[in-house]
């Protein structure tokens, strides 16, 4: 049973990944990543990492991807043909694509050799034994205990890092001069006359009337 589940989840993971790389529309790419993440969570569950799987769904697929969706919506639909045009027009872009494919192919081969060809006997095993219980391997209690004892420093530093990232994000994306921006665009669209004053479009929110 778990093998079937493994294969379904693995296919989901890999097709999601392929989708992210291949799909031209960034919105579709985001959706592919979400699918990839959910399949990855299933794989985590199969590996008895319950808490991490939950985290993956809630935080990663839940919050981070939502952020992505917002930004994609804001920036717009920049559908572009895949991988061409590095610098001058010509075959350089396709050269890079080809080179990249070859490199990544070499990388995957190496990694497979490295991971599977090692003398690590345990790889062929199914892992250490598992005894279910309230603080069994992979439960929130187990993780929580680890976080607050052995990995306390990492925990604290990670939270600090989150703070910095939040501040950084605000700084990067804020408006500089308030609602009244000195922009050259004075084009008035007929819709402006019909727009109520209190509500605003996103464009207004960022200072573009």
């Amino acid at each position: 049973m778990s093998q079937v589940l493994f294969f379904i989840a693995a296919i989901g993971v890999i097709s999601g990944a392929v989708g992210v790389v291949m799909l031209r529309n960034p919105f579709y790419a985001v959706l592919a990543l979400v699918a990839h993440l959910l399949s990855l969570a299933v794989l985590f569950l199969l590996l008895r990492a319950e808490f991490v799987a939950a985290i993956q769904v809630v935080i990663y697929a839940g919050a981070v991807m939502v952020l992505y969706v917002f930004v994609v919506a804001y920036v717009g639909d920049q559908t572009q043909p895949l991988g061409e045009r590095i610098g001058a027009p010509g075959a350089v872009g396709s050269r890079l694509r080809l080179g990249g494919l070859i490199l990544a192919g070499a990388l995957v081969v190496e990694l497979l050799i490295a991971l599977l060809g090692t003398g690590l006997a345990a790889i062929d095993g199914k892992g250490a034994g598992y005894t279910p219980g309230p603080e069994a391997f992979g439960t929130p209690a187990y993780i929580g205990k680890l976080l607050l004892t052995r990995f306390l420093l990492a925990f604290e530093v990670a939270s600090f890092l989150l703070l910095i990232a939040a501040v950084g994000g605000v700084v990067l994306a804020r408006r500089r001069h308030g609602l009244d921006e000195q922009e050259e665009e004075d084009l008035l669209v007929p819709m402006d006359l019909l727009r109520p004053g209190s509500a605003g479009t996103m464009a207004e929110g960022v200072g573009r009337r």
Partner: protein
Amino acid sequence: MSIAWYLAVSAIVFSLGAIGVITRRNPLVVLLCLELMLNGGNLALIAFSRMWGNGDGQILAIVVMTVAACEVCIGLGMIVALYRRHLPIDVDELRELQG
């Protein structure tokens, strides 16, 4: 399934992410592919954690996720800032740091 399968999947996902980083021109998608690579790493970590039977790998995977979140935050903030200044959202066009 033995742990080896999970590691194989992890390797494939990682390489796919690498291809995507090299190939795509939209910085948003580049960031997405970067997430792919991180996820590949996470999968390997969880697999090894299961192999050894202690929670170190899972803790590390959580930390990686945290870092990925922060990085996405900053990265997307930069893209928004680029967009606001009417700069092209294209990694090929953004090359002022050239030699």
